[in-house]
């Protein structure tokens, strides 16, 4: 934890030097949000509900999508990109010489401060959506549980994305050319802009368990819109614990393979 905070401080100080990037990022967030809102208005010009989701509810999904996207770009993607470039350029050796847990170390090295604007913009949209919300659905998580369910599932979902991305990145220990992974992931993440329920069954399953966008975006949105059930929340928490264990195994396996190969 101390390590993460130190790295965070270094990165913040670095980025504060580049104020132009901040304005650029604000613009980017605003443009992305505007595009999302335009799409919503196009959809709701034609219909009242998309697969049972009303306009304010889809707005909540858009907000959560933007928030989680911000978290990914703030903390997950920069670290994963760094791991891959380290492996490609042979500087990964330095990581292994540090007297700290290597998985922890590689996961907290890089942060892109300005991407937090997405988190803030997303949060604002979420608040807006909740305020304008029109009545609730029939979930079992209600009252104070809504906030709890929202934050727990948001945290669990982000962790899942981290796990899956790290597992895929570990592939770079075997196949050095993995740059397109980032493209692939960013492309797939777009699917989270809508509740996974609208996708055909096979795609829904993939988006829930293979690339856990369903958990990361849809479940917190369900909490906000009163659709969440306690059993679904428990499933999310159980799945993230399992995924963490798998990630741990795959990572140490990859590191062993790396040190074996480069000896």
């Amino acid at each position: 934890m101390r390590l993460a905070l130190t790295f965070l401080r270094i990165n913040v100080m670095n980025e504060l030097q580049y104020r132009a990037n901040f304005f650029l990022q604000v613009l980017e967030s605003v443009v992305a949000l505007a595009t999302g809102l335009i799409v919503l208005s196009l959809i709701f010009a034609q219909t009242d509900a998309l697969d049972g989701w009303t306009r304010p509810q889809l707005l909540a999904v858009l907000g959560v999508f933007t928030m989680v996207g911000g978290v990914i770009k703030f903390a997950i993607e920069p670290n994963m990109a760094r791991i891959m470039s380290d492996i490609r350029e042979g500087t990964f050796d330095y990581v292994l010489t540090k007297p700290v847990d290597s998985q922890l170390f590689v996961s907290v090295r890089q942060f892109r401060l300005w991407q937090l604007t997405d988190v803030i913009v997303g949060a604002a949209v979420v608040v807006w959506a909740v305020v304008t919300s029109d009545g609730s659905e029939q979930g079992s998580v209600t009252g104070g549980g809504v906030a709890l369910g929202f934050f727990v599932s948001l945290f669990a979902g982000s962790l899942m994305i981290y796990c899956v991305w790290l597992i895929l990145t570990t592939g770079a220990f075997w196949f050095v050319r993995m740059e397109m992974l980032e493209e692939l992931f960013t492309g797939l993440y777009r699917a989270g802009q809508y509740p996974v329920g609208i996708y055909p069954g096979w795609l829904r399953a993939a988006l829930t368990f293979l690339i856990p966008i369903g958990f990361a975006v849809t479940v917190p949105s369900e909490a906000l819109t009163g659709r969440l059930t306690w059993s679904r929340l428990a499933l999310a928490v159980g799945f993230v614990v399992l995924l963490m264990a798998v990630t741990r195994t795959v990572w140490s396996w990859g590191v062993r393979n790396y040190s074996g190969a480069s000896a």
Partner: protein
Amino acid sequence: MTATTYESGARAFVRLYSALFRLAIIEQFQYRAANYFYMIGMVTEPIIYLVVWSTVAEARGGDVGGLTPGAFAAYYIVWTLVRNMNIVFTPFGWEQRIREGQLSGQLVRPLHPIHYDIGYFAGWKIVVIVLWIPLAIVLSLIFQPELDPTVIQAAAFFVAIWGAYLIRTLLLWMLGMVTFWTTRITAAFEVFFAAELLLSGRLVPMRLMPDWVQTVAGYLPFESTFGFPITALVGPVTNEELIRGLLTQALWIGIGVAGVSIMWRRAVRNYTAVSG
């Protein structure tokens, strides 16, 4: 050297383009795996649009503005090919090109550098189309498009995708050349791409847009690079509309060529005045 050692312009031109095609095809075929991953990442975008609009169509009892799920499927599957035709040299690349001296290297050779980009990316497209075919088949099996073009439509489509490619190359060249005067234009690029997304037919078929948006789009080049080629193949479209669309493309190519040559001349003058 004597004059007879040089080839005539036309023959040299053909040779130049075939050399660039060859380079691009060999080189990009080496990266077929990376190209494929890139395409798969890209394909999620139209699938999302397709699923959303199919859902809307079903909620309305079968169609949106006359488009059924099958029509949307056709639109967004053809979309994937047109999107690939739209990939050209990025305006973000100019800064690097100037900084790393590739531009100087090109300037001392007797050839307008746009030929490298047009030729190379066109060759790359050939690889992309070959890789795209299986992807299109899989998508068609899943989403069941309603596609029944006439021969004329198919021919117009074939011409239109290359027209789209040329227009977008010229447009982004002009945009990228702004780098010669200022490097702080990333923000302008962002706004340009957002406008393009909304006004080209990439996000939704243009006829789902409000009328006034369609009118605005009519005065801009974006639809020629995206919506028109798709509609040419998917329909519904009359022969007259096809001809009008192709002529519009020709007009934009003319404007693009003129714009690029004027800007290029000024850009080089600026570059040779100040580059260190």
